Structure formats: structure tokens, C-alpha cells
């Protein structure tokens, strides 16, 4: 064996190993956490919550229960999920599949092969023409046949007519806000509250009858069909784009079907207006002016190139599924997406997927958009470019009841902003609710929430929210934000940046970069009311700014942790008494706060100090800045209950 062979084998082994070893700075120092907690007579086995503090509703996700019992598994869970979702070699369908599995419902398909050819003769001339034109026509026929099939799956099976109408009319009131709420008189707000309660109580009876398996089956089948079509188009992109527009018009005229029109557009600048079942556009700077037509529940738009402008004139459009599934896949160009409510990767009783594969893009929506879901899956995948995301509420990786959502932006310097429209009538006269940016939300006290994720790969990003956001959650749900690299800015006001509120789980993980975190309170590793909040920053010189009840604060029997592994950091807290490893009492016992800094020369304004431990005068909190000092191996107490 020559040295070259040996060298080659060595290189292969090294490459293989490098592929399996974590290529980033992520680490969750569970042993050190245990070590430090031991000093206040707590161990990692104590960091657990019960799953039965309140009556279990029908929609509690198994993963929420599992992580409620073991909240210290959240970082690894999120990291694994993030690694998978931001892997560009993994298909959209596989990503959908993993998010769907979060819902914990067994899909019963394969339905493939069960569908029948539609009665309409779709593009017969094209199919007879053979070659890429014929194959393309066959693909469209197959996709349409699949669409007809899933359209006929009874998504409201199990509900009476009245119950179906109730769900259709009432469910979205749980996800609706009005700007005029801030001006309503007290009795009117009280009446609205009572109305909301009565709707929730009725939904407790009606909701469990919804055939979620059918909803999932339909989405799954449709996403699978889309994936096959998209894969074929990608393989034949060059050949397809060489077809002259005149031939396209001849072979693929607009075709009306019972699911909506099927349209094929050429490389020119096209304008689409109305409602469509399938649009395949080969290029050009196109304009889409879309309006949802009742009864059309499934849709695929694939645009191969150009700086496109998408505008939805109604809710539930542009990569949105409402009792159905909508997929929008744009392959290139600097695009603009302007939508209303429940859009841009929103699945409610269904699935919504928006994929943008290149370009500097702008996403604008209102409520329930940019990866949002309930009783379904919401996905927004942006593969690159300098992007801007803005919305008003419930957006950017938001999951409500039985929802699983992920906004994944692979690279580019991005800006995420949510809020500044709907006033926070409960807390402040001059702040606005956001509930976004990796946010899980349940309807207290009736229904558990879902799993909402915001994952950003590379780039120097800015995240802006106001009240509730940035790896946060409310009521039996999980919200996670993972940013892999870049010098990022996280700006919010309250309930943010690794916060769980009221029996829920929230985490913000930033893996590298020199980052800035700024929030007023109940933030930066804060769990409030039997909830868990974690802010984990793995590397970089970071600055943390807060006013109170933040930076490792446990409140009302919650657990809050702020863990920074490397870098020269600054921790600035205005109120020393409830930050930097703090717990307060409720229900006759305390909460847990842990601040841990494991490297660098750090600056503290507040309780902490570089190169030291500190036990705060609270129930119960501790901090440790261990720098280069290795934790000793004290066996302070046995773990486990």
C-alpha cells in the first residue's frame, strides 16, 4: 500500500470525522449547571415541572409534556431541530415531515396510487407532443390529480354542519386583534372577554371531534406531490426555460379546473390576478395579485426566476393553507411578499409553505404570518440574501394550538420586526403585543399551544419585538429561537429572549458572534409561573442589558437560566435585587435563577462579579463566573427524586 493510499484513507477519515463532529460552538454544560446548583441545594434533577398542574386539554403535544418534565433537554432538542431544518441538502418535504411529527399524530398514508385521473382532458396536445413538453404536461396532470384527491378528503369529518360552521366562523377569533381594542370601554371589553370564553368552552367540545388525521394526511400527500413536481422541474429547468413562450402559450393555455385555474407562464414579465390552483412560471419579473376564492383549498405556485412581487388581497393566501394546503416556491430574484392575515407560510387546519431560494427579499404581513400555524404546519424557508421580515402579531415562527412552525433563514444579514400595531391593553399604554419570533402560544386556561421556531443561519441579524417574543412562550407550549452565527441584535421590551410564561417553555440560543441583548424585563433567561426560560450564548463578546426580573430570573416557581460559554461579556441590570440569578416565592415556595459565565473577562453591573460565585438573597438564585477555573467535583448531593 503506497503512502498515497494511506494518505487518502487518512484524509477520508478526517473528512468523515469532521462531518460528524459539531462544527460550531454549541455546548450545553449540564455538568457545570449541576455543579453550581448544588451549592444552593438544588440539582439538575430538580429542574423539572409537572404536566398536570391544570387539567390536560385534548391538544397537549407530547413533546411539550416531555420537555416540561425535562426542560434541560430543550437546548439539545432545539439544536438538533435547527441543524436539520437549516440543512440545504434536505428537501422541503422532509422538513415538513419533521415539523408534522411534532404534532405527534401518526399519518396513515400512503395514499399514493389511490387517486384517479381527473375527468378533464388537461393539455392533451402537450402530452402527445412528447419530450420535455409531454413530460411537463404529465407532471401537471399528476399534480392536479393529487390535488383533486386531497380536496376530496373530508377535513371536517366528524363535525356536524353546525359544528363545522362554528369552527370556520369562530376559531380565528382566538387569533384576531383589533387596533380599536385600546379604546373600547370596560364593559365592552368585558363582554368580548366573556364571548371569547364562551367560544373557547364550546371549542372544548367541538375541537376534539376534528379529524386531525385527515388534515395531516391531506397536507402530507399534497406536499409530497409538490416535492415530486418541484424536483422534476429543477432537473429539467434548463430545458423548460428554453421552450419558446409561443410554444408554451400553444401547449399550456390557462386551464380552468374544479380546484381553480392551472397556468404556465414563460420567461417574460407576467401578471397573475385572482385565484389559481397551480402556477408554474419560468422567469421574468412577475406580479401576483391574489385573492382567495372560497372552496379552493390547495394551491401550488412555483416561480423559477425574476424579481417578483406577490400581493395577497385576502387572508389565507401566498403559501397558506386553511382547511387545505398552499405552497409558494420562488427560485430566484429579489422578491416582495405583501400579504394580509394567516399568510406567507401559515397553516391553520392545514399547511402553508413558502420557500424562497435566493435573493434579497421583503416579507410583509399582519397577523399569523411568516411561519405560523394551528392544527397544522407553517413553514417559511429562505435560502439566502439580505431579507426583511415585518409583521404585526403572531408571526415569524409562531405556533398556536396543535401547531408546528418554523421560519428558517439560511444566510444573509436579516431584519425581523414584529409589533407596533396592536396595543398591549393589559400592561402598557405605549407598548404593543408581538407574540412572535420563535413563539409558542396556548389559550389560557383552555388549550395547550404548539412549537414555534425561528432559525437563522449566517449573517448579522436584527430582531425586534415588543411584548412577548424571541424564543418565548405562553401556556403549555414551546418557543425557540436559534441563531447560528453573526453579530446579532436582539431588542424587545418584555417577556422575551428566552422566556417562558405560565407553564410553558422558551429558549433563545445564539451560537456565535458578538451579540447585543436588550429588554426591559421578564427576559434573558426568565421563567415566570411554573415555566422555563433559557438564554444560551455559546461564543462571542456579548452585552446583556435589562432593567429588572431578567438575566437568570425565576419567578412564581419558574426557572430562569442565562448561560454564556465564551467571550468577554457585559451584564448590565438596573435592579440588582431581582436579576443575575434570582428566584422569588409564590405558592409558599421559591423559584430558581442561575447565571453561568464560563469564559472571558466579564463585567457586571448588578449582583455578579468576574471570577466568582454569588448566592443571591432570594428564593433561590445563584451565579457563577468560572472563567478558566474548572468546577471541582464535589458530590454535594445525590440527584434524582
Amino acid at each position, binding site marked *: 500500500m503506497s503512502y498515497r493510499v494511506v494518505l487518502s484513507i487518512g484524509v477520508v477519515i478526517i473528512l468523515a470525522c469532521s462531518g460528524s463532529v459539531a462544527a460550531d460552538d454549541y455546548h450545553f454544560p449540564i455538568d457545570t449547571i449541576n455543579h453550581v446548583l448544588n451549592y444552593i441545594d438544588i440539582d439538575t434533577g430538580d429542574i423539572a415541572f409537572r404536566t398536570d398542574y391544570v387539567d390536560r386539554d385534548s391538544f397537549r403535544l407530547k413533546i411539550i409534556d416531555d420537555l416540561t418534565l425535562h426542560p434541560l433537554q430543550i437546548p439539545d432538542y432545539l439544536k438538533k431541530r435547527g441543524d436539520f431544518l437549516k440543512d440545504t441538502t434536505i428537501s422541503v418535504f422532509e422538513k415538513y415531515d419533521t415539523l408534522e411529527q411534532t404534532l405527534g399524530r401518526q399519518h396513515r398514508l400512503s395514499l399514493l396510487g389511490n387517486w384517479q385521473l381527473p375527468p378533464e382532458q388537461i393539455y392533451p396536445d402537450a402530452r402527445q407532443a412528447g419530450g420535455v413538453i409531454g413530460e411537463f404536461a404529465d407532471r401537471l396532470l399528476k399534480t392536479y390529480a393529487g390535488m383533486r384527491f386531497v380536496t376530496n378528503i373530508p377535513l371536517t369529518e366528524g363535525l356536524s354542519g353546525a359544528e363545522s360552521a362554528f369552527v370556520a366562523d369562530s376559531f380565528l377569533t382566538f387569533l384576531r386583534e383589533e387596533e380599536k381594542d385600546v379604546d373600547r370601554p370596560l364593559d365592552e371589553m368585558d363582554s368580548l372577554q366573556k364571548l371569547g370564553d364562551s367560544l373557547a368552552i364550546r371549542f372544548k367540545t367541538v375541537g376534539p371531534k376534528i379529524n386531525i388525521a385527515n388534515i395531516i394526511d391531506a397536507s402530507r400527500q399534497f406536499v409530497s406531490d409538490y416535492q415530486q413536481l418541484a424536483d422534476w422541474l429543477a432537473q429539467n429547468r434548463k430545458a423548460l426555460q428554453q421552450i419558446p413562450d409561443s410554444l408554451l402559450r400553444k401547449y399550456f393555455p390557462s386551464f380552468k379546473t374544479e380546484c381553480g385555474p392551472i397556468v404556465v407562464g414563460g420567461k417574460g414579465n407576467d401578471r397573475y390576478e385572482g385565484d389559481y390552483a397551480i402556477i408554474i412560471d419560468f422567469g421574468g419579473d412577475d406580479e401576483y395579485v391574489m385573492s382567495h376564492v372560497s372552496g379552493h383549498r390547495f394551491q401550488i405556485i412555483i416561480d423559477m426566476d425574476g424579481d417578483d412581487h406577490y400581493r395577497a388581497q385576502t387572508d389565507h393566501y401566498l403559501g397558506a393553507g386553511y382547511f387545505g394546503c398552499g405552497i409558494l416556491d420562488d427560485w430566484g430574484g429579489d422578491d416582495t411578499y405583501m400579504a394580509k392575515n394567516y399568510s406567507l407560510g401559515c397553516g391553520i387546519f392545514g399547511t402553508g409553505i413558502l420557500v424562497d431560494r435566493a435573493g434579497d427579499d421583503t416579507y410583509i404581513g399582519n397577523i399569523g404570518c411568516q411561519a405560523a400555524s394551528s392544527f397544522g404546519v407553517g413553514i417559511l424557508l429562505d435560502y439566502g440574501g439580505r431579507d426583511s421580515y415585518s409583521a404585526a402579531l403572531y408571526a415569524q415562527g409562531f405556533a398556536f394550538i396543535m401547531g408546528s412552525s418554523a421560519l428558517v433563514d439560511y444566510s444573509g444579514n436579516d431584519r425581523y420586526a414584529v409589533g407596533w400595531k396592536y396595543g398591549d391593553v393589559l400592561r402598557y399604554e405605549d407598548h404593543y403585543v408581538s407574540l412572535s419570533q420563535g413563539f409558542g402560544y396556548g389559550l389560557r386556561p383552555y388549550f395547550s399551544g404548539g412549537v414555534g421556531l425561528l432559525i437563522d443561519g449566517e449573517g448579522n441579524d436584527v430582531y425586534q419585538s415588543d411584548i412577548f417574543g424571541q424564543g418565548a412562550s405562553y401556556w403549555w407550549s414551546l418557543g425557540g429561537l436559534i441563531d447560528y452565527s453573526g453579530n446579532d441584535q436582539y431588542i424587545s421590551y418584555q417577556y422575551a429572549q428566552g422566556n417562558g410564561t405560565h407553564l410553558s417553555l422558551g429558549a433563545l440560543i445564539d451560537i456565535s458572534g458578538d451579540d447585543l441583548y436588550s429588554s426591559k424585563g421578564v427576559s434573558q433567561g426568565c421563567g415566570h409561573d411554573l415555566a422555563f426560560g433559557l438564554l444560551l450564548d455559546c461564543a462571542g463578546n456579548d452585552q446583556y442589558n435589562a432593567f429588572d426580573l431578567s438575566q437568570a430570573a425565576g419567578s412564581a416557581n419558574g426557572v430562569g437560566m442565562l448561560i454564556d460559554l465564551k467571550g468577554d461579556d457585559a451584564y448590565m441590570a438596573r435592579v440588582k435585587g431581582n436579576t443575575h440569578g434570582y428566584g422569588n416565592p409564590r405558592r409558599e415556595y421559591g423559584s430558581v435563577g442561575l447565571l453561568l459565565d464560563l469564559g472571558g473577562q466579564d463585567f457586571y453591573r448588578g449582583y455578579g462579579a468576574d471570577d*466568582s*460565585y454569588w448566592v443571591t438573597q432570594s428564593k433561590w438564585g445563584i451565579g457563577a463566573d468560572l472563567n478558566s477555573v474548572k468546577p471541582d467535583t*464535589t458530590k*454535594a448531593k445525590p440527584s434524582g427524586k
Partner: protein
Amino acid sequence: MVSKIIIMVLAMTSLAFADTKSEVERLFQTASSGEIRYVKLVQPAKDSLAVMKDSAAKYLVSKLSTTDAREAQTLTEIYRGIGKAGTKYLIAALNTDDKYQLRVTSRCLAEVKDSTSVDALLKAATNSDYTVRAEALAAVGKSGGGAATAARLEPFFNDSIYSVRKSCVYGLGNLKSPASLDLLLRALGDPHFGVRLTAYDALVSFDSLAREKVAALLDTVRFAPVTGLAIRLAGQLRIHQVEPKLALYLADGNPLLRGWAVWSWGRLRGKDATAQLDELQKRESDLFVKSMLTDTRAYIDTLTSHE
């Protein structure tokens, strides 16, 4: 001044209403409003309901089954203001299977602090729902009754759910019956930190009554979590008789015990500990113990010469 005027206006408005029930409803709607716009009206509404005493108490019981957290909190605050005039209505409200009502009513009784409610609360504490048991037991502890109540509370420490044991321990801390000390010391080794640390607080509340038992514990037990807490209690309760034992822990191989021994040593010896702590600081290598030395020196520096 402004709030007094608002209370007067609300009270006068109340008089103008012939239907007390409607007035209670109206005031409760205001009192339980969570909106920032009405925040100035909330406390006066609660106060108005509190001064209505019996007439408010009897109507508000219909609200006790609420599932709304803010309404539940509002009720506890109002009944706190109403005081013992509300006890009979609250005790009657415990006669239900509705666990929301049982929980909220227990919470209200905990605020009223009337020992005549102990029997009814202890009955509620046998409920199959552990959250009801926990609330009821916490209320028992706050309702008083001394050693007799403590004796009836102790059996609940055998509950398998930590929050029930925690409420039991908390109650025993409130009731301060010396007979409960052995149980509280046992609770320092409970599997759940909430129980352990609540037991610690309960023992602190016993103050001098607990000194003998804690000292004995330090003499007989060498088990890290219990010993660690006992060392802390020695300083917290100023148990000077354990100083020789504590001095040994200043050189213990376990930094947790050594660190907390430093903490207690400073509290027991005050300024007299200064020289010894400074000496320890010179040779200590463990960061936790060093931090405790620094913290304790800072504490001693705050003491006046006679402390």
C-alpha cells in the same frame, strides 16, 4: 387623595344602587379588570367591595369557581379586605366538587386567616386533586390554631406529591409547634428541593425553638444536603453551641460544606471571625469557598461593633 375621592364616589354610587348584587357585579368587573387604562379604578373598586363586608362576601361566592387567574387573584384580595366576615360564606363554598372553586376558596381563606375554617380546609385537603390538597393545606397553615392544628397537618407530609408536602411543611412553619420540629428536620432530606428549602425556611421561622434540634442534627448526621442545610441553619439561627463542630467544617474536604461553614461562621462570630477568615482566604483555592469568604467578610464589614 385621588384614590380616596374615587373610593368615596364609588361608595356613594353604591348607596344609590338599590340592587346590591348588581353593584357587587359592577364593582367586581372593575376590580378584576386587567387593563392598564383602568388601573386607577381597580384598587378603589376592591376597597369598596371590602368595606361592603357581608353584603359583598355573600355575592362574591358565586365567582369562586372562576377559571380566570386574574379574577381568582382579585377575589383573594377582596376577601382579605373583607376579613372574617367572609369566613362563613367561604366555608360553605368549600362544599363542592368543583376543584377551581375549592382552590380559589382555599386561597381566599388563607388570606382571611380564621382558625374556624381549619376543619373545612382539612376536609378539602383530602381531595383527590393534589392542587386542591396543596392550596387547602397552605390555607390551614395560615389559618392558625397552633399545636393542635399542626398535629392534624403533619400526616399530610406523607403525600406522594411534592407540592402537598411543601404546603404541609410551610403550614408547620407558620404554626410553630415544637412537636413538628422532627418532621421539619426530616423534610430537609426530601427528594424535592421545594420541600427541602421550604423546610429550611420553616425552621428559620422557629428561631430559638429550633436551635437544640438543629445542633443535634449537626452532631449526628453527615449527609451532604441535610448537613449543608444544617450548617446554614447554624449561622442563620445563631446556634453558638455548634461552633466547635462548625470549626471542623471550615476545613472540610467538601467545598460546599466548607463554603457554607464560612458563611455561618461569620454570622456566629461576627467581627471576631475576621482574622480567622482572612487566614482562610490566604490558603483557600476553591472558588466557591473563596467567594463565600469574600461575601462573609463584606457581611462582617456591615456589622456595627456591638453585633
